[in-house]
């Protein structure tokens, strides 16, 4: 689907517009407004980072006089400034990923298509990527991230679309609240927590680190549990869903399917 939006594939049916341009009939205009970062992409190993970005700047028709400044600004933005004059083959996987992002952003696209952007990134780059994406979204760009790692998306997404077997699954139809999900509880007094849970009749499974996992249906049940625990003077300090919301939604969709 990203290939289709990037203007490289023709749709069998249906239409897609990028920044108001139909990718089928106005391919070139649509293409030049998209920044596309495929999941697997190559770099010209012999070229330096600056040269690679400059090539793409020229390929997008950016004025040759303006491109050097633009390229170095973009390298700084993805924290590759020190690699500007180094050939791309010395870059680590994460650095290449960041170079790929810079490549997709070089022409200041209205729409950004990212396929598994965080794969290979170290934790710090992941956080920087998250901030960068939020920043771009704040600037009014459309950022479309495709990923199989749901936790990666958890902190950046505004809207999620689930695709299953080539079809969009309608998430609004899912009664998410009714589905039981795991919650992680922890207290400064683990024994007290367990005694309390036994007392109120909630089944629990203990974790080696003293935490406790319970199954609760919806936020309302969680609130009730907190209220009861505080009332019983259990020193509860953590209550958090085991999985992210996206993951839960996804799993609930799977349940629906089976």
């Amino acid at each position, binding site marked *: 689907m990203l290939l289709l939006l990037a203007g490289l*594939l023709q749709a069998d049916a249906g239409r897609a517009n990028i920044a108001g341009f139909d990718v089928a009939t106005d391919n070139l205009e649509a*293409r030049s407004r998209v920044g596309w970062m495929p999941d697997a992409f190559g770099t*010209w190993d012999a*070229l330096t980072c600056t040269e690679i970005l400059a090539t793409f700047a*020229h390929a*997008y028709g950016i004025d040759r006089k303006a491109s050097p400044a633009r390229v170095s600004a973009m390298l700084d933005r993805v924290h590759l400034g020190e690699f500007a004059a180094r050939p791309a083959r010395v870059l680590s996987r994460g650095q290449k990923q960041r170079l790929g992002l810079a490549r997709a952003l070089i022409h200041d696209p209205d729409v950004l298509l990212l396929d598994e952007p965080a794969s290979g990134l170290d934790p710090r780059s992941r956080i920087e990527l998250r901030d960068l994406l939020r920043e771009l979204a704040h600037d009014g760009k459309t950022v479309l991230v495709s990923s199989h790692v749901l936790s990666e998306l958890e902190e950046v997404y505004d809207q999620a679309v689930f695709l299953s077997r080539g079809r969009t699954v309608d998430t609004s139809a899912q009664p998410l609240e009714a589905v039981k999900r795991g919650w992680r509880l922890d207290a400064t007094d683990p024994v007290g927590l367990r005694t309390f849970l036994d007392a109120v009749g909630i089944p629990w499974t203990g974790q080696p680190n003293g935490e406790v996992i319970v199954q609760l249906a919806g936020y309302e049940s969680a609130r009730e549990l907190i209220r009861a625990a505080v009332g019983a003077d259990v020193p509860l300090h953590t209550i958090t869903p085991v999985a992210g919301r996206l993951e839960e939604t996804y799993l609930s969709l799977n349940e629906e399917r089976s």
Partner: protein
Amino acid sequence: MNAWRLSVNGLRTVTELELKQRIRSRRWITALVVWFLVIGAITSLVILATSRIMGVDGNNQNPGPMAFALNVFFVLGMGLIIAPSFTATSINGDRGAGTLATLQATRLSAAEIAIGKLLAAWLTALVFLVVGLPFIAWSMVSGSISLWQVVACFAVVFMLVAVVCAIGLGWSALLSRPAGSTVMTYLSVVALTVISTFVLLLMSPLVRSTDGVRVWGIPDGVQAEYQAKIDQYWATHTDGDVGGLPEPPIDKCTWNTQTQQNVHLERVWWITVINPFVVVADAAPLPESAYSDLSGYASSAADPLAMIRLGVRMMSMPPETERDDCIQLYAMSNYYRVDYDSDGTPHITTASGNPVDIHSPVKRRPITIDSPIWPWGLGANLLIGATFLWVAIRRLKVPYGQLPSGTRVA
């Protein structure tokens, strides 16, 4: 259409990218140095060998044309081998490395990517050919090769190299595996050069036919009489003195009709016109004298380029419908000289210089260079190159409708 849009900026971007990648690797310099040494060694060897060959038997022919021809052919042959390697994996290789799709997604058009790649490969191949120029200049010094000849030959070689670059590009767009496209590219080059020659050779038995021919010759009865006289002469002159041999009965020559086997190469000769070596040979400028008497020049100057030219032209002529057997009798005898004037009329003189009136009605066909053949060959080659370039552009066009099986966009 967008795919065919060409801009200077787009072409420059792709060409620069390709050239930078190629120049950056150290192997490039090594290859160029090795190439310089190899071409230097070969051309020196050619020049030395030809001057030695021409120098023997005191005939002291000018070794220049021979050395020049061999060197030009060597450079052309090497160009045909080196140039395809720059493009034969250009598109499917990039696709495999995952760099093609990101370029296709930019504003660059399919034509810009394809032609940019072609330009870069061609320029690289030209560097290799230009490295050989000093040695070509050396073979010029050794004689009778004009600057014009060098320029014309190399211009044609450059264009043919561009054609094989385009063939490689087309195959690399058509086939998904680099190994496959490399093989097909080299097969195409071999088809143009070697296979076309083989096809012509194998066709020659197929175009053989038995045709009627008018012969100006001695009737059978007279021939038998003449042979008897000769036998009698030798029976009485056992000392081997040939002074009193009876003259051939030329005055009894008449027209008669015979049949003879003809190989009608004029029906298939055009196959060789596509051969890059023939194109270059035919395009090479020759001295003024060669244009009116090509066969005379080719044999006296020992110029392989002129010989190929002569051979192709001879093949293109239909077999003669009239034959002069009587003139052969004179030509074989030590007592007569046979000369032809410019329109092919034979003149026979005795060894002492007295003209003999033979009334031969058959003129020899002079072979001249009145119409060049090479534009057809070069045109056909350029057409092939353009077709492959067109294929490459078609295959690079986005958005893809139906993906060719076994390929991925990214």
